[in-house]
């Protein structure tokens, strides 16, 4: 049979494992319309509202002292929280996948715990442990190390809400890869660190980058937990999301949406990188989805 007849046949008869064209078009329509209303419309509004009074007003609103310090603070918090989380994720994944011990499932559950805790409750927990009224917090404040209403508290809150991100991506990949390659390297006389840098890390680098990206997006945008622990001191503990809230509540719409647009642009960059990573390194990341 020629290719042409095959082609017409495929059009003439619907395969038994396909839906009727009308149903298919309806489902695609619902999906597209749903995403347009739920996702694309809010995204478009952020930029439309920011540019309501033109580019100049939008850019100018980001130039003042408070806005600049908010941007710096968010970058600083992200620069501390994300590497800390990556280090934890690597250590936890190594511990969990390279050793056999009792209570492993329980440990994994504990690492996932922050996913099911409200960010506000997370902030509350940190205030209760490190606030000036608690034993630990009181001692720290007396020694000039305030945690709550200061940068360390914001860092802790950010690490709390992003806690499982890196570990969750690494564990399935490292389970799939097993221990044979590391064992071979060790048998050949490589040190533990050398084995990690030259054998393990290259095997997990894309999953590590993937987890780090997710972690970065969340760290830059965290609001609930930071709102509770930061004290919202303008110019000192107000991060970008907190500044957005303050500006919005003062009816400074253009300024609020301009900062929101800047954060959105950063979020879109992480999303783009993540999508590229998924296209390029589908094989390694597939392990994450399988588990």
């Amino acid at each position: 049979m020629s290719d042409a007849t095959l082609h017409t046949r495929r059009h003439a008869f619907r395969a038994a494992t396909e839906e009727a064209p009308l149903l298919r078009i309806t489902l695609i329509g619902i999906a597209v319309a749903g995403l347009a209303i739920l996702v694309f419309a809010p995204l478009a509004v952020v930029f439309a509202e920011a540019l309501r009074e033109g580019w100049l007003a939008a850019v100018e609103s980001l130039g003042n002292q408070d806005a600049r310090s908010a941007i710096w603070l968010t970058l600083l918090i992200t620069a501390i929280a994300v590497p800390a989380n990556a280090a934890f994720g690597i250590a936890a994944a190594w511990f969990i996948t390279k050793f056999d011990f009792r209570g492993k499932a329980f440990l994994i559950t504990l690492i996932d715990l922050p996913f099911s805790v409200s960010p506000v409750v997370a902030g509350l927990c940190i205030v209760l442990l490190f606030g000036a009224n608690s034993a630990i917090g009181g001692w720290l404040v007396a020694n000039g190390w305030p945690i709550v209403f200061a940068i360390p508290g914001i860092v802790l809150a950010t690490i709390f809400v992003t806690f499982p991100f890196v570990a969750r991506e690494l564990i399935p990949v490292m389970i799939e890869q097993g221990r044979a390659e590391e064992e071979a390297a060790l048998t050949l006389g490589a040190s533990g660190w050398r084995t990690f840098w030259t054998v393990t890390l290259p095997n997990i680098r894309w999953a590590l980058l993937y987890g780090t990206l997710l972690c970065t997006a969340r760290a830059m945008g965290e609001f609930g937990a930071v709102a509770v622990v930061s004290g919202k001191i303008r110019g000192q503990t107000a991060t970008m999301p907190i500044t957005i809230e303050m500006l919005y509540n003062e009816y400074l719409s253009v300024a609020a949406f301009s900062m929101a647009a800047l954060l959105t642009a950063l979020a879109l960059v992480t999303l783009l990188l993540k999508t590229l990573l998924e296209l390029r390194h589908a094989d390694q990341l597939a392990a994450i989805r399988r588990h």
Partner: protein
Amino acid sequence: MTHRPLVHKTAMPGLGLSAGITIAMLSIVVLLPIGALLLKGANFGLSNILEVVTRERVAASLYLSFKLALLAALFNLIFGVLLAWVLVRYRFPGKRFLDAAVDLPFALPTAVAGIALTALYAPNGAFGSVAQEIGWKIAYTQMGIFIALVFVGLPFVTRTVQPVIEEIDREVEEASATLGASRLYTLRHVILPMLMPAALTGFALALARAVGEYGSVIFIAGNIPLRTEIAPLLIVIQLEEFNYDAAAAIGIAMLVISFVMLLAINLIQIVSRRRMGHV
């Protein structure tokens, strides 16, 4: 009975270092703070916690948070499965773009989502003005909270179900069709049961996220006590008044209710996996 060692002996290096970092960070960042909350609750006493939780305003906010989170997660369960199916099985222009856009609610900061949704659904907004013409008010009502919760929970079900659809063996569908089942019958009785365990996992994640959601909700909610005030906001209000005991009581109530709900979902999941014959 032989005694199992805590850690099996192995030549793999780094046990002390990796275990040390893991346990130290887990303790400082997660376990000690949660412990502090539970300790606060224990000192406050069960009867006092119950007194706080049953106050009209607190009970209303807890009921609202869990009710709307459940409704939003249900919406996301249905829409998420549909979206996953369309994105895996059909070919159409812009599909890859759409697939990437599903993750946007994960990437977009909640405060940004909050003010954007409010601008959209407020009476003078693009969607809000249309709704007002047919007599609907969305922003500053429970409907607005529902929309915000749908937004933040959108990706969960799709992302858990997609890989399962990708791995479905087409022969199963062919067998069903050969035996005379209509396509809709196959979808309903063959495909859907296969997707259920993953869909429920996504549902649980979306639910947990929606229950505790704060940033995207408070702007659109209007925050009217007894009507549109969510439980996390009430915790923030108590904290601003330095009412740590009451804040802790509401926080513990939220943890307990979430825990019970997730446990129930896990049980349903085990049952639906059993029905599928692979436990």
